[in-house]
C-alpha cells in the first residue's frame, strides 16, 4: 500500500470549518472507512486519520476544523499525501438515527447519504454545521442543536435523541463526537443497537503498530484495524 500525492481541488470555508475536495480515482471508500494523511515536511511526523465527509462523481472530501498544527498547515497547502481507504466499513441499514457532535458529523454525513430513512441530529456550539450538511435535509429529517441558540434547538445534541427514541424504536443509532457525548449516547440507548465512531491517535493506520488502542470489554482493540466503528456494548469509557 502506498501514499499518493494529492492536489486540492477546492476549499470551502465557513465559520471556522473547512471542506477540502480533491479528485480520487482509487478504491471507493465505504461509510466508516478513513484515510491517512501526511504532509511533506518531516516536522509533522505521524500521519493523521481523516474520515470521509463525502464521495461522489470521483470527488472525495474531508470536513476539518483547523485546531492543531497538522490541520492548520493542511489549510495552507494545496498538496498532501493520502493512503486508503482504511478500516472496516460501518454496518449499513435501511434506517438509522445519526448523532454528530461538532466535527463528528463528518463521517455520519457520508453514512447517512447511503441510508434510505434517517434522522440526523447535528449539534454544535454555534450555527456552523448547517452550511456543510444542509444537503441532507432533502434526504431525511435533520435536527440542529446549538449551545448558543443561534439556530435550531438551543441545547446539547443528546437532548433531542431521547425524544426521537420514543418515536423511533429499534432503529440503529450511530454516534460520532467527543467522548462525553458518546458516553451520554450510550447511557441513553443503554448501548442497544448503538454504534460509536471511535477516535484515537494513530501510528500506521493499518494494524501494524498497535498504537491506536481503546478499551473494550474484550481487552484492548485497535481503532484502525478493529474499528473505527464499534458496537457501543463493547466500548468501555474511563
Amino acid at each position: 500500500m502506498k501514499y499518493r500525492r494529492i492536489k486540492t481541488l477546492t476549499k470551502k470555508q465557513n465559520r471556522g470549518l473547512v471542506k477540502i475536495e480533491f479528485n480520487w480515482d482509487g478504491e471507493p471508500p465505504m461509510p466508516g472507512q478513513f484515510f491517512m494523511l501526511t504532509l511533506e515536511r518531516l516536522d509533522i511526523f505521524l500521519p493523521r486519520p481523516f474520515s470521509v465527509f463525502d464521495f461522489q462523481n470521483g470527488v472525495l472530501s474531508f470536513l476539518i476544523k483547523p485546531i492543531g498544527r497538522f490541520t492548520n498547515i493542511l489549510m495552507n497547502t494545496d498538496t498532501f499525501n493520502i493512503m486508503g481507504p482504511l478500516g472496516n466499513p460501518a454496518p449499513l441499514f435501511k434506517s438509522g438515527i445519526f448523532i454528530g457532535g461538532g466535527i463528528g458529523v463528518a463521517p455520519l454525513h457520508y453514512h447517512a447519504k447511503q441510508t434510505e430513512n434517517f434522522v440526523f441530529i447535528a449539534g454544535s456550539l454555534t450555527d456552523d454545521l448547517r452550511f456543510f450538511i444542509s444537503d441532507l435535509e432533502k434526504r431525511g429529517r435533520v435536527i440542529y442543536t446549538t449551545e448558543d441558540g443561534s439556530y435550531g434547538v438551543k441545547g446539547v445534541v443528546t437532548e433531542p435523541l431521547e425524544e426521537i427514541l420514543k418515536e423511533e424504536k429499534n432503529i440503529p443509532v450511530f454516534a460520532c463526537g467527543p467522548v462525553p457525548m458518546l458516553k451520554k449516547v450510550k447511557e441513553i440507548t443503554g448501548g442497544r443497537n448503538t454504534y460509536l465512531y471511535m477516535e484515537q491517535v494513530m501510528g500506521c493506520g493499518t494494524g501494524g503498530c498497535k498504537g491506536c488502542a481503546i478499551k473494550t470489554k474484550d481487552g484492548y482493540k485497535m481503532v484502525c484495524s478493529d474499528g473505527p466503528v464499534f458496537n457501543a456494548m463493547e466500548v468501555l469509557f474511563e
Partner: protein
Amino acid sequence: MNKLNVNIGGLELKNPLLLASGVWDTDSSVEIEVYGAVILKGVNLNGRKGNPPPRIYDIQCGVINSIGLENGGVDELNRKIEKIKGRTKLIANIFGSTVEEYKDVAERLKGIDGIEINVSCPNVKDSGIAFGRSPEYVEKIAALVKKVSNVPVFVKLTPDTDRLEDIALAAEKAGADAVVCANTYTGIVIDINTGKPILGGITGGVSGPCIKPLTVYRVWKLRRVLKIPIIASGGIASWQDVIEYIMAGADAVEIGSIIFRNLDAGTEIISGLNKYLEEKNIHHILDIRGGVHDG
C-alpha cells in the same frame, strides 16, 4: 554484481536494510520482499495485553510510543510465520520477564532465520530494559538463547545507559552473532492543559529522525570495541542516513518509524543506495564501512 548483499553473523542477506520490530504485524500492507530481513513484533511466551491508551504521539521529527509489547504469545506468532515464510528472511524479537522465559521462547519458535533478543524495551516494567542495563544479565540471557538456537542471535541494546560498551562486550562474550544499536530512548510528554503525562504508560520510547545523531554516536563508539557486526537502528528516513550509519561502523541497518509515513520507504532507500554506489564507483556497500574513523 550485487553491491548490497551482506553476511551478518552467519545470516546471508540480499541487502543490509532490515525492517525494525514493532511497526509491522504480518499483514499485507508492507512489501517485505524489499528488505534483507524483517524483524517481527516482540514476542514472549504467553503474550501481553499492552499498555493503556494513548499509546503513540507525534513529537515533531519523531514519535514517542508506549505500546507495551502487545502480542499474542509465541504459539500465535508461529502460526503467523507459517503464512509469510519464504517471502524474505524472518527474525523474531523475543522478550521475557525471567531469564528462563527468553530461553523458552527461543526454543518454541519455528520457521525463523534469526533471533533478536529484546533487553531494551523502555515500555514494560517487569522485563526487558532492567536486564539490558546489566552486562551480567545480558551475558546470561545471550548465552542461554544462543545455546538453544540454531539460527544467528542478535542482542538489541538500550541506548539509555552509560555502560553501553560493557553491555555490548558482554553480548559478544556470550557468543551473540551481532548487536543491534539501539532501541528507543526513554522520554515523556506532558499535556500543558492538564499537567498530566499524555501517554497512558506515562513514559515512552522516542524514535524517528530526531534521535539519529545520538544513535550514530553510539554505533561509532561501539565499532571501536566490538568485533561482531553492528546493526544500526535509530531515526533512518533516507538512503543518506544509511550511508552515514555505515560510515560510522554499522554492517546493516533497521528502519522503523519512517514506515508510519511512507510504507514504501524500503524501496526508495534501496534504489538510492544502488545509485550512490554506482555514481561513486564503489564495489560494495561495506567498502565504506567505518571510513569516518580514518579521517
